């Protein structure tokens, strides 16, 4: 294969250009996307929740999950702080109410359906999808069990199903995507006796949350959790006590988590493809040059010997 000097330089400049500009152009392209319009979300109002665990029961039923060891009306589960598992996509935890000890605060935990999900960006085989409707879905048939999503999620949500070693799968709340498509509302929102879990368009829920806070500033703290955290989440929360008292991470960046690692991640393919080609070419060229010079020197010394 012959490669002339002009063509070689052209190839090198194109590859170098894409290596340098690549991360920036891709970052700009995705930076213009601010989420699907009209996507659905949920709003949890902790001041309305009474910890009846109806949401947990409904979630169990609509997702055909196995019956739990402890019944749904047993309060002993509140003694520990639970996380969602492969058999419970949502759990309710109890927190002390320092302002009013007679009224403990209950926090429902489940996937927050981020606007730009970190799990989806970390998944090496694109098993996750942020749907235009709002829910973040995963394809369990694609999942091969690397568990990067578990590490990437800033809310520690995806759980792992260890039931089968040959069919590993990550499981989490999907905001009852199939029910939404059928025109129904998610199971937990339907079951909640006080509508403390409210389903609707995310934009409407943001307005509702702001209205509730403005109408009753003594009842609520002035913060809608999820409006901006980690680039904004589909699930929003309002509370009567600061969110750190309810175990929420309050130090999350306002940028989507993927922005934090985009520069690094997008440079990985470049490093593995362009760098070997570029530096390999330079090395080959310099070797060629050395060999040529050595040959030239030997030739000259031979000719010099003959002349003597």
């Amino acid at each position, binding site marked *: 294969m012959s490669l002339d000097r002009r063509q070689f330089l052209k190839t090198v400049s194109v590859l170098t250009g894409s290596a340098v500009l690549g991360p920036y152009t891709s970052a700009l392209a995705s930076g213009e996307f601010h989420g699907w319009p009209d996507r*659905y979300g949920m*709003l949890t109002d902790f001041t*309305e929740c*009474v*910890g*009846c*665990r109806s949401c947990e029961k409904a979630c169990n039923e609509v997702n055909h999950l196995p019956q739990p060891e402890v019944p*749904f*009306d*047993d*309060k002993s589960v509140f003694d520990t702080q639970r996380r969602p598992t492969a058999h419970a996509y949502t759990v309710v935890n109890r927190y002390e109410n320092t302002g009013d000890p*007679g*009224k*403990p605060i209950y926090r429902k935990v489940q996937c927050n359906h981020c606007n730009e999900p970190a799990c989806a960006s970390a998944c090496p085989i694109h098993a996750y999808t942020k749907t235009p409707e709002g829910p973040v879905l995963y394809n369990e048939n694609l999942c091969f069990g690397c568990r990067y999503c578990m590490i990437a999620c800033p809310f520690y949500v995806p759980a792992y199903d260890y039931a089968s070693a040959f069919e590993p799968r990550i499981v989490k709340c999907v905001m009852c995507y199939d029910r939404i498509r059928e025109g129904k*509302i998610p199971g937990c*929102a*339907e079951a*909640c*006796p*006080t*509508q403390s879990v*409210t*389903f*609707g*368009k995310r934009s*409407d*829920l943001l307005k*509702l949350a702001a*209205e*509730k806070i403005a109408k009753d500033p003594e009842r609520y703290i002035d913060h809608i959790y999820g409006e901006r955290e980690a680039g904004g989440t589909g699930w929003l929360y309002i509370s009567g006590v600061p969110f750190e008292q309810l175990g929420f991470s309050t130090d999350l960046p306002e940028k989507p988590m993927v922005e934090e690692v985009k520069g690094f991640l997008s440079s990985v393919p470049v490093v593995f493809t362009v760098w070997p080609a570029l530096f390999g070419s330079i090395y080959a060229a310099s070797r060629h040059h050395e060999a040529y010079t050595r040959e030239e020197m030997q030739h000259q010394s031979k000719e010099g010997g003959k002349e003597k």
Partner: protein
Amino acid sequence: MKKIVFCLMAICLVLLLVQPLCAGSDSNAGAGPAAPSGVSAPGTILLDSLSRIYEPVNFNHDMHTSVAEHCSQCHHEHPSAKEVTCTECHSITATDFRRSAKTGFIACRSCHAAIDPAQPGFPGLKAAYHRTCFQCHRDMGDVGLDPLSCSMKCHAKKKG
């Protein structure tokens, strides 16, 4: 013998005549003329429109009327606002209540129906009921401490 039969018949007749006057002391069932739609007479009311998981709730309206400060504490669309106590307008027996009720109450379900995602701020019927109850019963410690209290305090669990 004939005298005894006659006396028994007379007693039965008297009882039949007196019975309507006593109606309403225990329940509104079958008492007086049919109430206009939307009017809930006091007594014990069976709340059964949502009874899927639990048995219907036997709601003792009489008792709540005696402790509520005013009708609009629960019936938020009631015209009395917050100035007049229930008993200033309404007698608590079923028949007298109906006679005294100038304005028909609007039943919760006439506005609050199924949850509508297009109006997330508007409570569905279930939330309308529960929020109304919880405004007092949460402070009383009946709810918010133990999930078992749902079936212990108000709803008997459906069997099977």
